[in-house]
């Protein structure tokens, strides 16, 4: 009984602290949201506030006029995120698992082989040459999925760390005696046992793919294949570029009419909106996974 009371108190404490942290995390985002519906001139003359004196939906009208483009970009981003996450996470787990086996001879060699890529890379030029000249992936959906992010050393080590510390070797040994093949062991036992970390890595991979604009920048030239971040970053960075004093003078572009601040805020909101809608569903699995993993471990 005593433990229960303590647990309850602890939960109360946790709820309070987490509420404060959540509010602190959300306030700036709320400020962006409010700014996106604040009238442009108020935004400039009296700054950002949570209670603007004049509201305006102009920035969203600006977006609606380009809704076809935006919706298509959403579609591309969702597809890329889905493909990247499913393939990436599976390959990552398959790569991490053998390294977690204590009597696997190559475990350290492999670990070093993978870790090395976390630090050293040949730079964008050589990758670009390879992907575009040898693999010809420019302007295909694979250009957004395959380069750079599919398997990252960071995720591999996260998964390996989980196998090493949370899954007992004895489980494997007992199955091995039954004569199960390594591949079966991995898919039918190890993979389900690692749901918490798989869920984590899926989330990370998903976020990386959703936020990525690098691949789009280098390997996509047809705007029909732009993901949402490419669409947004293009507008944002054009503005950023033109704002730099030297560039503006150089090009004689000081009188180009740039999208205003509230439009930029609206773009930021549009970039995270689908996440707000999709995330709770993903989370369902994550929390389930966390609880499930805890019971089995």
């Amino acid at each position: 009984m005593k433990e229960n009371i303590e647990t309850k108190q602890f939960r109360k404490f946790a709820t309070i602290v987490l509420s404060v942290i959540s509010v602190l995390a959300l306030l700036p985002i709320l400020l962006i949201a409010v700014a996106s519906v604040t009238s442009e001139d108020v935004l400039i003359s009296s700054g950002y506030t949570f209670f603007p004196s004049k509201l305006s939906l102009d920035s969203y009208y600006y977006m609606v006029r380009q809704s076809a483009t935006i919706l298509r970009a959403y579609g591309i981003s969702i597809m890329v995120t889905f493909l990247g996450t499913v393939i990436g996470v599976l390959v990552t787990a398959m790569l991490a698992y053998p390294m977690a086996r204590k009597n696997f001879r190559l475990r350290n060699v492999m670990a070093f082989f993978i870790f090395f890529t976390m630090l050293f890379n040949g730079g964008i030029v050589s990758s670009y040459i390879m992907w575009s000249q040898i693999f010809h992936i420019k302007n295909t959906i694979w250009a957004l999925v395959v380069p750079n992010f599919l398997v990252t050393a960071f995720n591999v080590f996260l998964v390996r760390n989980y196998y090493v510390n949370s899954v007992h070797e004895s489980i494997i040994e007992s199955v091995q005696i039954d004569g199960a093949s390594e591949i079966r062991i991995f898919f039918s036992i190890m993979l389900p046992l690692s749901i918490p970390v798989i869920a984590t890595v899926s989330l990370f991979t998903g976020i990386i793919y959703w936020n990525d604009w690098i691949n789009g920048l280098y390997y996509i030239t047809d705007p029909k294949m732009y993901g949402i971040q490419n669409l947004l970053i293009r507008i944002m960075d054009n503005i950023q570029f033109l704002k730099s004093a030297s560039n503006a003078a150089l090009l004689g572009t000081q009188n180009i009419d740039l999208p205003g601040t509230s439009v930029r805020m609206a773009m930021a909101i549009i970039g995270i909106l689908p996440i707000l809608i999709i995330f709770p569903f993903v989370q369902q699995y994550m929390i389930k996974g966390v609880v499930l993993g805890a019971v089995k471990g």
Partner: protein
Amino acid sequence: MKVFKTLFLVLAIVAGMVLAACGTPDSTASDTTSADGKTQTETVSYDKVVYAYATFNNTPTEEALAEVEEAINVITREKIGVEVELMPIAIWDYSSQVSLALQGGEKIDVFQSLGDLNTAISTSMCLDITDMMGENAAESQELIGDDWLAATSFEGRIYGLPTYKPIALTPMFVYRQDIADELGLDMSKVNSTSDLTSILEQVKAAYPDMTPLAAVNTGNIGLGLTVENVDYLTDNYYEPKGVLMNDELTVVDYYASDEFADLCSLARTWYTNDLVMKDAATTSSTAAELMSAGNYFGYIASYSYPEEDTAASLEAQCGGYDLGAKMIGSAFLDTTAINALTWMISSTSDVPESALKFLNMTFTDEEVCNLIIYGIEGRDYVQNGDGTVSYPEGLDPATVPYTSQLSCGTLGNFFIMYPMGGTNVESLAWELEQNKNAKTSVAMGFTFDNSNVKTEYTAVTNVISQFLPGLICGSIDPETEIPVFLERLDEAGLGTIIAEKQTQLDAWVASNK
């Protein structure tokens, strides 16, 4: 377990798709070969020229672009036996994309500089076109003139064609006409930046809540370019490192000059008297945005149009207020003014002569030039009947299939492009005149090759970005900070850069006299 079976199934499907997709490039490759085959059966084969240009507008889809290309090809096939592929690249990433493509062995035949012609020359990015000019670009050569071509030359060899447009930028003060009228300010007496002080003070006195002077953009309140008669010797306008002043051929440290000290102390006075925006050094808003908000009186910037036209063209984006503009200095041309936007033939081009022929057409052929800027008549723009054009009814730059209207000042020949509806056609003549009459630097045509002092350049650039914005926006005190600034510049190796510039300049003078 069920989850994993489904997952596995999904993976199998995905794997199938990967294989299928890996097949696609081949099929597209065969498509292109068949297309080539087709052109061959037509007995004439055309050289293919890839034209990479920077665009501020939305990137068009491939279909929209293809129509524009085809419309251009109809002209170029006949006239110069060339087919063109347009490659619009977003401005902010233009330089690195072109550099990447050229390193990656991709085909780009014609590209432009964005203030970095000297780098393009020193790394052999562009081709020496001196000997091809006569045969392939004679009309452009005549149009642009040898004086301007000197600015795109290095050691006597021509490396590119400068964009032909109004380049004589005159510093102006753009202000709220309604307020000036109300307070009875006599703007005609304002002829220099120091004359502005009393005007700004009067505005401040009448409207205490108003900030009289807005920033043009981050770290710039427009004062930088108002110092007259300075040749930046092909350095970035806002980060000069060793300049020529007052028609002398001696390279000097701009930041140690009296002119610079006066400028900073003027900015400081404005800053301490609340005449200028406090956050100018770091603001994230541009002058137009600030003006629209209604609580700024004016800003200083350089424009190439006459006063009235400048004011009129800015009104819409400055919140619709009635604006006026007053020149507070005179235009000055140095090498950078001309070669900042230079069109070059890439050193990896397999058809340099055809590429140059096409480049020539962007300067001389009205149709080709306007196709690149406005796209297809009827679909992307309509003629207004008075020589000007507009977007089709109900469409705007963001929704037409193709436009790169905002690039009008960066490519080809500005004077043969259709003006947008609402612009004063007559001012073009004035602008052409300005190009010819503006005061020209004594070292016009000299291009500095910085490859020997790259290390010093990086260090000096960092020092400049640390001090300059604060100094010219008045937010730091020049009395105490300029000496520190100069000391740091010296440590970073500004002396070495100046000496190198002097050596190259002397050699240039010797060979040009």
